[in-house]
Each structure stands twice: as C-alpha cells, then as structure tokens.
C-alpha cells in the first residue's frame, strides 16, 4: 500500500519501507475486541502508528464537530480513543506472528487532527497529555522499556511542515 485514504484525507506512504491500513476489518480480524490505529508505517529506522481525525472535513456535521471538540477538550478523546488504539495496536503486533512491520524498531505514535483552530500551543498541550496517558515514561525510579518511544499531535499545517516531504497528506474534497 503506498497511497491510502482515511475519510477525506489522502496519505501517500510511497517513501515508506512498508505500510498498511491497519484498522480495516479484513486486515485486522479482531476489530470486535481490539481497537486499531489507522495506519502502520515502517521506515528505515522506526515504526509509525498513525491515527487521523478530520473534524475540518468539509461535509462534517456541526453537531459531530461540537461533540469532537468537547471530547478533545475534556481529554475523552485521548482516554477513550487515542490511547487504547495505540496500546491495542502494539499488543496486536506483538502477538501476531505474521507481522506487518518490524517490531524491533522504535515505535512512534503520530496523531493528525485536521482542525485548523489547533495552534502549536494547543498541540504542545495535547502532545504532553498523550505522552502522560500512553504513557511514554515508566513509574518514577523504575527501569522501564517504553512500548512507544514518543508521540506527537499534528494539525495539517504542522504535518505538512515536518512530514510533508516524506508522507504528504492531501484533502480530497475541498
């Protein structure tokens, strides 16, 4: 898979070593009990778990956007979706013997929230909240091997700035 669509967003993973649209029923098989991130992407030196949310979708219903905003502000999105998706994906890949990616490479969790109102200050706060909830660090004083080395929340603009050259994202319908 080199190009993949999530909702209204087109991801181009042609520069990845391997990539898969992970949350499709056929590919996953356990979506009734395990959550899944949208994409698993392997680069030369890392495995990226990528989750995309698109509240700025041109056809999004105002009510759905309001619910999304509420969940984002109250950390419900992080607790109920972003964290379980990442953890379950990791467990799935760890258990699965026909792996989509090389699990020995460092894992990074990238969340794209296509919401232009999110500016860097809010993205910093969201990223820190996600780091604390995954978590990326173990209990104080404990030697710890984090399952995900780090994570970051992006909006479309910051994604394009940092990752646009490697994995461009385009909106299908303006």
């Amino acid at each position, binding site marked *: 898979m080199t190009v993949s669509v999530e909702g209204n967003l087109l991801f181009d993973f042609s520069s990845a070593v391997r990539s898969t649209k992970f949350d499709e029923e056929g590919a996953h098989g356990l979506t009734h009990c395990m959550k899944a991130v949208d994409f698993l992407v392997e*680069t030369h*030196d*890392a495995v*990226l778990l990528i989750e995309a949310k698109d509240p700025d979708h041109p056809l999004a219903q105002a009510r759905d956007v309001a619910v999304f905003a509420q969940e984002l502000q109250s950390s419900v999105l992080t607790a109920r979706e972003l964290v379980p998706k990442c953890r379950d994906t990791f467990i799935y890949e760890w258990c699965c013997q026909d792996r989509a990616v090389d699990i020995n490479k*460092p894992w*990074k969790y*990238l969340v794209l929230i296509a919401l232009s109102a999110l*500016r*860097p*200050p809010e*993205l*910093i706060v969201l*990223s820190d909240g996600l780091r604390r909830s995954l978590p990326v660090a173990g209990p104080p004083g404990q030697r710890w091997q984090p399952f995900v080395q*780090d*994570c*970051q929340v*992006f909006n479309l603009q*910051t994604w394009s*700035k*940092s*990752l646009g050259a*490697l994995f461009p994202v385009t909106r299908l319908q303006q």
Partner: protein
Amino acid sequence: MLEKLTVRNFTAFTHLALEFLPGANVFIGANATGKTHVLKLLYAALSSQAVTERREGEAFARKLQNVFLPRERHLGRLVHRVKGGETCEGVIKRHGRDLTFSFSNRAVNELEFRSRWPSEIGPAVYVPVKEMLANAPGFRSLYQTREIHFEEIYADIIDKAYLPLLKGAPTQDRKLLLDMVQEAMEGRVVVKGEQFYLRNRQGELEFTLLAEGHRKLALLWLLIANGTLLEGSTLFWDEPEANLNPALISTLVAILLQLQRQGVQLFVATHSYVVLKEFELQRTMDHALRYIVLERDSATREITHRVADAYLETLPHGVAQAYEDIYDREVQRTLEGVL
C-alpha cells in the same frame, strides 16, 4: 475616548500611526518593541489636566518626565535616537479633537503644546507590571518628600487604590463586576490605616501574605468599588498576566471585557498567549476588540506595527512564534530517526 495616536521620533518609534477602538485595544509584542511606551504616553496625556492650556502643557511635560523617568528627567532623552531625529512630534485625538505636542532632543522640560480636547476627562488608570499595594503603606509620603527612583505610575496607582469607596449601594453593573472579582479572589478588600487586607471567612489576611495574583484582582476590586473605573474612564494595563496563575487569566479577561461593555476604554499590553486567546475566546459581537502588533524589523531594526480586529489576522507574531519554535523542536525530537 482616545481615537488616534500619531507620533514621530518618540522613544523606540520613528513613526507610529494608530487608530483605537472605544473598547479593548490589545498590544502584542516581544520585549523592547515599545508597548509600554505607547501606554505611558497616552496615560500621560490623559493625566495632565489643568486650568489653562499653558498649565496643561507644563503638566503634560512633567507627567512625561515622571512616568518615563529619563536621566535627569530630560524630556529630550525621549526623542528617538537616530540621525535626523531631532524633534519628537505627536498628535493624540480624543473625542474628535487633537492634542498636539513636540519637543526637541535638547529639551529639559520645554514642550510645544496645543490642546483642543474637551475639558471633561474621565479618570485614567495605569496598572503597572509590578504589584504595589502590598508595599503601599508609607510609600505615598516617601514618594512626596524624597527623590526616589520610581516611575510616577506606581505612586498614581496607590493614590487611586486609597480612594474611599463610593457611598451607597453599587449599581447593578458595578455589583456584577464586584461579584466577579470577589468570587475569583474569594473575599473582599478592606483598608485599615494604610494597610490593605483581604477579608474572607477565615478572617483578614494582610496583602503581604496574599498571593500576588490575588493582589492584582484586589486592585481591580478597589478601583471598581471606589468608582475610578466607571463609564468614560480609561484603563491601561501593562502585562496583566504578570504573576497571575493562567487559570485566573480567564476571570481577569472576563472582568476586562465586562468593564469594556460598561464603557471603559482598555489599553492592554501583553506577551501572553493565554491572555490573547482568552480575549479571542470570550469576545462576543458586542465587544469592540482590536489587536495592535508591534514588531522590530530584523533588517532595519525599526519598530513596525500591524492592526487586526481578529486574532488569526495577528499571526505571525513573536508570542505565537515562541510556541511554534518550542513545538517545532518537540516535533524534531519525536521524529528523530524518522526524518
């Protein structure tokens, strides 16, 4: 209300031309972009009332000397220091009428002055960055009798805070404001002698023991309760965010917007993203809100300005840029080994 400021060769500025709204005028800028200078200049103009025009000119010159405190109080040191910048000239428009002034870089206190302002001017309040109420006892007499190196804005704000409360029950508007402040600081202010206290269920707490953020709210409470901040007054507030817990900034901005709704013209200088976003998030259609971005041009080193009536139009600016830089470095760290 203040409508317009045009000034040439004043402190950091070679040229500045700003139009203000009757509501909230929010100055955004990094350090050393002249935000405080604009606030002080306007404050000095509003605080220089006198019986005759000549006296008013003298009062304005003295006020400029005292709020800016140039070396040896030489007014000329406020002239922009650049080749050809020998004279500072300015016009401040209020209620459609001009106050014009000029002074040379050799001036001690000589200032050309002409005012067509209407004589009735509502009170002007300048809240400085440093909180002073806790240190107020004895300060006024010290300031009046000794040459201490404090800008006059500090003495002025203490004078205004000591004004006795207005008689009678507050109007509904004022009560609403007082309740907002009381709820945020969990008490009300009492003055005994020259000492300020916060009175709440636990008793009376002297200001020296009070969190500095709460002292700022207490100052607002006093200015509202004693009628200084009423319709027609002007509030200048330099860095309202200083020493304030970000959680309290939401309340502070709500109070400022409420003051604005009640006819107080606001001039706020900030480099806090939280203050800026609170203004943007809390504003409604009936709030007149203008942002003035002051920046130093990296090539010419001149201070430039931009005006916007919506927050997103102010971007990019130094305050947001600081967060973007942090975010970019964070992204780089996260994506180490990926890029």
